[in-house]
């Protein structure tokens, strides 16, 4: 996927002026957070479950090698294959090799952010394998040659007329305007693809070493048709998506659905544990799991390790006051919002993703809703520290902060400097109590007035009062 993160500020400006997008984001804001709060209100032990989940994930990360190898041998015992992919290129090539080994021409796909991350669709198309997205949102995006703007509601940036137009154009049908009609049309088109596909590719919300299973949770059932009908099922997932046992899985399912959509339980929860066994009525003949690393193993033991707990629920972006103003595309790559602002610099480099960890007020809402308690602001700050150390942040800002911090350590000079600034601002404000413009900090006065200082500083006034008191 093309990287647009360096243009974050321009992207954001365009997004803020896009009335359709703003309307769509309003729907998001009105939907997910309220549903999540209601679902959690009905689960008093939610916080205790979060603590457990955090502990389990920390344990998994510290023993990841053991769990990965256990998972591999279990999958093999079940008759499946595990493929290790250290990079996006490796992963794409592995998947293509499997497709070509069975002469696949079309593959159906369930929703998977990891396949977005590795750029699978473009790669397959280049090699004459046609991928067909079957999640309704992803399908719409594929027709539009668009990309997800949200990790669980990929087409959240579109409205009804966008869908109506693209269906009429690409399906060659009369434009339909009712959501039900559009859904039926997509269903009709997709049924043929499900039946015709040579290979089905899905992601996995989790994998379970205990049984060698992967699991997908969906609300449309498209994932089940994707993985059950073709002769070959390829699961593409990343190495950190491990929960050790089925018992643990049930805990994470409770957290995931509530944190994501506010559902007690997602509609379809499907475990895959290998290819069709003798006596099975259906299922694929081949079962492959591609385990993608793509930089994750290097996060074990570094400042970003906590990020490996992420279960991709999207609660952080659903509650983010920045995401909810600008949407996901502004972030310029696959993963948007707070979790993306931590992950994206790791995956595309801090040089290109430099704005992302800075585009946060550190309001802390993301961390407060995270089901696995990832300290997202702390991780974004750690990127800022990296930028500062590498002198990758803008020089003017760095000098200003450095100069200010030096002054703050020299209180007498600081006092002198601040009294001059106070005086200047007071003179500029006159008797209005506020300033309309400033020679520095134009970002402030562009959109709002600056309340003027009251006069001399508190410490100066306090000292004067104390001196008076001493004399009397």
């Amino acid at each position: 996927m093309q990287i647009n993160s360096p243009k974050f500020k321009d992207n954001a400006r365009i997004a803020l002026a896009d009335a359709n997008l703003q309307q769509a984001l309003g729907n998001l804001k009105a939907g997910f957070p309220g549903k999540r709060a209601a679902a959690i209100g009905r689960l008093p032990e939610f916080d205790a479950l979060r603590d457990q989940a955090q502990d389990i994930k920390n344990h998994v990360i510290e023993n990841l090698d053991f769990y990965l190898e256990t998972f591999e041998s279990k999958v093999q015992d079940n008759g499946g294959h595990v493929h290790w992919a250290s990079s996006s290129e490796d992963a794409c090539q592995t998947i293509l090799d499997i497709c070509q080994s069975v002469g696949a021409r079309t593959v159906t796909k369930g929703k998977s952010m990891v396949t977005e991350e590795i750029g699978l669709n473009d790669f397959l198309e280049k090699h004459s394998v046609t991928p067909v997205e079957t999640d309704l949102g992803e399908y719409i995006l594929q027709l539009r040659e668009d990309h997800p703007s949200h990790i669980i509601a990929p087409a959240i940036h579109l409205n009804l007329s966008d869908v109506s137009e693209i269906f009429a154009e690409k399906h060659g049908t009369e434009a339909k305007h009712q959501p039900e009609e559009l859904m039926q049309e997509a269903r009709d088109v997709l049924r043929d693809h499900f039946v015709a596909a040579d290979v089905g590719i899905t992601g996995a919300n989790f994998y379970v070493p205990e049984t060698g299973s992967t699991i997908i949770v969906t609300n449309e059932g498209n994932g089940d048709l994707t993985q059950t009908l073709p002769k070959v099922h390829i699961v593409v997932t990343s190495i950190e998506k491990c929960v050790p046992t089925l018992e643990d899985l049930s805990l994470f399912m409770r957290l995931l659905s509530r944190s994501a959509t506010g559902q007690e339980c997602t509609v379809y929860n499907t475990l895959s544990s290998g290819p069709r066994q003798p006596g099975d009525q259906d299922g694929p003949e081949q079962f492959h799991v591609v385990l993608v690393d793509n930089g994750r193993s290097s996060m074990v033991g570094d400042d970003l390790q906590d990020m490996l707990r992420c279960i991709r629920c999207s609660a952080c972006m659903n509650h983010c006051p920045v995401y909810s103003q600008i949407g996901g595309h502004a972030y310029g790559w696959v993963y948007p919002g707070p979790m993306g602002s931590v992950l994206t610099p790791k995956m595309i480099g801090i040089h290109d993703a430099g704005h992302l960890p800075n585009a946060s007020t550190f309001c802390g809402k993301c961390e407060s809703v995270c089901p696995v308690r990832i300290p997202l602001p702390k991780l974004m700050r750690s990127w800022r520290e990296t930028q500062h150390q590498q002198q990758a942040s803008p020089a003017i800002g760095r000098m200003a902060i450095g100069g200010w911090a030096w002054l703050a350590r020299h209180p007498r000079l600081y006092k002198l400097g601040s009294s001059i600034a106070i005086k200047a601002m007071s003179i500029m404000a006159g008797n209005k109590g506020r300033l309309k413009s400033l020679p520095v900090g134009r970002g402030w006065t562009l959109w709002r007035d600056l309340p003027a200082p009251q006069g001399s500083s508190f410490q100066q006034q306090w000292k004067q009062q104390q001196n008076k008191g001493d004399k009397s």
Partner: protein
Amino acid sequence: MSVSPYLQVPQQPPHKPRVALFITCLVDSMRPSVGFATIKLLEAAGCHVEVPDLQTCCGQPAYNSGAKQDTQKLARLNIKKFADYDYVVAPSGSCIGMLHQYPDLFEKNSKDYKQAQELAGRAWEITSFLTDVLQYQPAPTQQSMTITYHDSCAGLRELGIHQQPRQLLERIDKLQINEMAEADTCCGFGGTFCIKFPDISNRMVSNKTDNAEASRAQLLVGGDLGCLMNMAGKLKRQGSHMQTRHVTEILANMLDIPAIGEGENTPLRPTNSDLGYEV
């Protein structure tokens, strides 16, 4: 940004504690009246208040800009400056929140780390200190006004401050609190964020002032001057009549001083209900 582990409430409220006022750089330079209001409240609650000399800043702008070493140096200065007091109290959840993060700046179990933990254990935001630590019950007063309260992020999510200011305000007779929608959503200030990302910040503060105005309160109140200056600046730019004040000014009954961003002390706009609007 989870709630600080250092908020240990003593079992018995201390008798006449020696309290250092941490004035904070913004209150010091922009709105000293908040400092005087804070002292007035602390003294009314039975504290002996001192103002350690030559204070500057908690270091949060450096910390959030990635300048960790600069922050460490400032933290060490503040740890020393506020060492000899029973408590350190500031009229800001954000700056006290920063003091509670000082331990994270240092190697675990180092001398600095332990001193930072010790300081964090004594550092309180004013409304939380009055209610949680001192269990202070202000004498009943009367102020006829309708306010709406903005929960600043750091106070709310790092120090658990939500009920405390409301509890104190509710003791004022004829003061009505109209809660606004999304009171706990960031106002878009975010320190340097509002300068680095002015367009996004502007949309966030516009949402905030829209919600505040929709509450039909006369006065927007909060506990952090950065947020209040941001919101007041937006309200004034929009030509709103809504006034903005720090919570301590109301609790200390210091309403003769012009509200934030006002040149003079103008009377509160009549509530919308007085104007015959539907409420």
